[in-house]
């Protein structure tokens, strides 16, 4: 057991079909596993630079989203901040560019935590639509496993909750947000 502060951040725009996979992923983890106090699960959406704080305040930051790697749908890549920065500046989404830039900006600061970027190759991130394509949805359990393994590497084994929530249910809630009812 260690006391490293870990942030698990899901990124992506839930309006662009598969681009929302990072958001759904972290929500899935939050709903289905017991979250220990040293772990913060953050659905970061497209917040980009608003997420800079997490890079400075946590010892380890795991970012999950879509990637710009060419490859088969569902292929998963896991890279360190150094590997991300060493790549060419070609990115497929504004959000992904932002994350890279933020890592670069923060890397100059002494409080920068250790970053791991986990990305999955999506099928479609162009159509303006909530939810995931069937093929991407099929590969989500693999992404869950990779994220759980990364957490294990940091000394955290998450215990599943008794009641499980499906990806379909989580996506449904995101597609139909409800404002609180005022009395």
């Amino acid at each position, binding site marked *: 057991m260690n006391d490293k502060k870990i942030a698990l951040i899901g990124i992506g725009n839930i309006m662009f079909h598969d681009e929302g996979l990072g958001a759904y992923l972290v929500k899935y983890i939050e709903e289905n596993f017991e979250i220990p106090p040293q772990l913060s699960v953050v659905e970061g959406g497209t917040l980009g*630079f608003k997420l800079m704080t997490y890079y400075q305040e946590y010892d380890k930051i795991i970012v999950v989203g879509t990637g710009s790697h060419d490859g088969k749908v569902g292929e998963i890549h896991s890279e360190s901040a150094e590997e991300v920065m060493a790549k060419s500046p070609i990115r497929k989404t504004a*959000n992904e560019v932002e994350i890279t830039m933020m890592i670069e900006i923060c890397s100059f600061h002494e409080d920068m935590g250790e970053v791991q970027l986990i990305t999955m190759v999506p099928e479609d991130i162009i159509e303006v639509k909530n939810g995931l394509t069937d093929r991407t949805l099929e590969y989500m359990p693999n992404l869950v496993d990779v994220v759980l393994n990364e957490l294990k590497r940091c000394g955290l084994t998450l215990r599943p909750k008794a009641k499980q929530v499906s990806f379909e249910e989580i996506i449904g809630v995101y597609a139909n947000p409800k404002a609180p009812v005022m009395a």
Partner: protein
Amino acid sequence: MGKKHIIVDPITRIEGHLRIEAVIDENNKIVDAWSSSTMFRGIETILKGRDPRDCGLMAMRICGVCTGTHYQRSIEAVEDAFKITIPKNARIVRNLIQGSLYLHDHLVHFYHLHALDFVDVVAATKADPEKTAEEAAKWAHVAGVEPYIGGAGDFKMIQDRIIKFVKEGRLGIFGNGYWGNPHYKLTPEQNLIGVAHYLKALDIQRELSKMHAIFGGKSPHPQSIVVGGVTCVQDIKNPARIALFKELLTLGRDFVKRAYLPDIYMAGTMYADEATDGNATFHASSHKGAMGKAVGGTGGGILSFMSYGDFRLDDTGFYKSDLLFPSGLVLDGDISTVHEVDPNKISEDVTHSWYKGTGAPEHPYDGTTIPEYTGLEKKEDGYAYLKTDEKYSWIKSPLYNGKKVEVGPLARMVVGYVKGDKRIKKYVDNFLTRANLPITVLFSTVGRTAARAIETELMSDVMMEWVDELAANAASGDLSTWTEFDFDKVSVDTKGMGLAEAPRGSLGHWVKIKNGKVENYQAVVPSTWNAGPRGPNGEVGAYEGAVIGTVVADPEQPLEIIRTVHSFDPCIACAVHVVDTKGKELATYKVDPTCAF
């Protein structure tokens, strides 16, 4: 040697990327420019059919930089449709939430996304730390304050770190710069001050982002605003929460006054020559709509400004209240007249945009978004160019009464100033007097950047007043945060608009509601106004005009184009490819992204 093309190209085809195509003459002066976005959106369609009370929660997802502003704008469009006036506490809380967004956005924009267009990091390694401390004191004194970082020892430590990074090849983002370009004009000492504040600003932004969360609800996405008011009554009742907000604001304000403003005095003075170079302007060009005479300087652009106005100061309701930032238009650089904004005169044209349209500019209430992509033209050189006579952008061309206008902090300061707003006049005059610069210096790239800093200082001061006003109101026993309304009654057949100001410019949401559901929805975002293509009769857009007239020191390093586009705080991600007429790629430069639009 003929004319050369400089192309600012998207990183990829998706999401809000911007391309600037510019033509330079044999003297490296930009004689023409086009701004194109390669994104396709149509996000509004996703909002159709929803319960209008829930729209804000989806609308906030449009963009990561303006999240909280889209959220509030959407809710206010619905409140306008329902004729709801929110309680005083809700008004002040919303002002504080938006105000903290301004502080955070402006600070991060200047230091982390724009400062390195002025500050040469590598040159900072040559600075003398003793002299740097003297220099920092000098500019702080111009601002009437003591420097934020004052000791030679502190500067030495920071310089050692830069040297270490350079040696280890770990410059990160700094690795992509055009260090040594002759259009970097600061001394080594001044560059070191810039880098030192860049690093300090990383700490400060962390504190500022906490402010936003106090009234914004569960971080990081805001959740506390609802149609009718706000939900954070517990935070208003709790003096400790208000005190914490004030403490964070005090900390941020101190940095704004003792680092940000002095840095702007320093950059403004060192770059004043180009900011006042009348030959380097759009209006000195032979373009249609240009006046053929010098007004302002490099990067000034079309000099037509619009502000919808924002931050209500009383409780008389939307579009009736006094505003911190007045609404209005100043056209063609004529600072003797301000025109009132008539929302009926706002339209979007698609002559040069990849949409079908109905043949004439459309008002947002009736706006359509039907894609019609006609592509780029691959020339013999193998490079694809914009078909600039036809359609060339995914961004529509918003017009006010048929005119292209610029929006953003400069527009807000100019409109407020010309309108005679006492508070804005005081801050702008104070800046110009201390800097010993004429008002026309604001009509430039540097001026646009200075206007943002002036606005940040003004905001940090007025927010102090608002926090006290909120605390006093709560202490007096008024804890009302929500106005009740009969949804079934007000949502039968209505429409409304949320017109106000996001940090980077005028943001409008328009909603039509029928039988409790959204019938039509359109958003016209700040970067659409600024980055949009030409109008139906060739009217030049704000980015396009700002770039025309600029002299590029080295076409392989289009630093000046990037600096000017950055000065608008663009919501885009882009790269610059420089090609000569043979289409050979000479250089690539990555430009920051800031948001999806």
